[in-house]
């Protein structure tokens, strides 16, 4: 190959450059929030449950929050009756009663040591998933919720 050495060397440098982010983040970015599972099982032990079962909340909390918002703001229905017949006040404060670091059910908080800068429940997961909801730019959240 004409100038084969240079071509191959350049190719190796190019590929190394291209894959640099993958290698430099290997093992780090995948570290999910710590204490998440511990906190959830702590809640279960205390006989507590989120607004709906945890599986449902994990998959659908965003749709549920949008329904809550439309119901409370537009229809004036400020009470949510969940699938077990329990009533919950439609407010982000209802979420924060449990999902706030320092709350009774969540004393230690949780964080992702590699990517998160906050130990708050919402933020630690959202940072991990690189989701940036704008809830706290208007609603008053717990300290550190906007990090």
């Amino acid at each position: 190959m004409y100038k084969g050495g240079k071509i191959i060397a350049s190719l190796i440098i190019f590929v190394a450059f291209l894959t640099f982010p993958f290698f430099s983040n290997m093992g780090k970015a995948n570290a999910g929030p710590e204490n998440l599972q511990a906190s959830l099982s702590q809640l279960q032990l205390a006989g507590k449950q989120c607004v709906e079962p945890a599986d449902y909340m994990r998959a659908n909390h965003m749709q549920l929050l949008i329904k809550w918002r439309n119901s409370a703001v537009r229809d004036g229905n400020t009470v949510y009756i969940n699938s077990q017949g329990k009533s919950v006040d439609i407010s982000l404060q209802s979420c924060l009663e449990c999902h706030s670091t320092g709350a009774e059910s969540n004393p230690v908080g949780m964080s992702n040591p590699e990517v998160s800068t906050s130990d708050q429940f919402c933020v630690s997961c959202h940072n991990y998933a690189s989701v940036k909801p704008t809830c706290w730019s208007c609603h008053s959240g717990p300290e550190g919720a906007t990090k």
Partner: protein
Amino acid sequence: MSINRRQFLRRAGIVTALGLGGSFVVIGAHGKKVDAASEFKPSQQGLVAKHWAMVVDMSKFQTEDDFKRVVDSCVSIHNIPDFGNPKDEIKWIWKDDFEHAFSGGENEYLTEDFKKLPFTIMCNHCENPPCVKACPTGATFKRPDGIVEMDYHRCIGCRFCMGACPFGARSFNYRDPRPFINPASLSPDYPTRTQGVVEKCTFCVERLADGLMPACVEASNGGLIFGDLDDLNSEVRKIISSKFTIRRKAELGTQPSVYYLMGGDDHA
């Protein structure tokens, strides 16, 4: 090695079918349960009415403090920012004189005293709200109980509603309001707004849902009377049907729900 057109089409078809079929399987396996067996209800202690309306008893607004007390109660509860200049001012409830509040309908040769008469001004929660017609996103809307409400989530900041409102009852956040809210009176129960969002008086819908009267009504010592205009026995209805009241720019046909009771010292 080469394939003919027939073979190519056949293989492409097979791959497409596999891809589509596979994606159905994956989506089906992870199908999201969006609907839980749940429902939404209004709160039990909430106040309800068919047509909320307000009467402003002018006789109860004499001193500067009468106005200030009412305005301040609203400012602290709703996290209203103070930008410190009149161009950016955010107003939910405020004081203005007769000449500016009632322009258009007055007699030409009113006495100077009368023109300077101070009035408490807020959103009129019109029966035919022009702001609602102008809003392209449905961010402002009329509730069945007559309250013209704002859904800040949907506001795109086009300010058509501000142009449409003949009462100047709407204010725009030209800047991020959070740094301009007095931290001492920051109320965590009510959201702040962001830059690019219009806001106005909402007759305290969030307090009505909790069974409380609007903040200004509580702070007014009887100067503001709030109730159901469609209820024959309500105080507002009794006052409006028996005393002399005026409304701002009634000639425009928007049917304001805020009535100003003139010289009504002897009511309830």
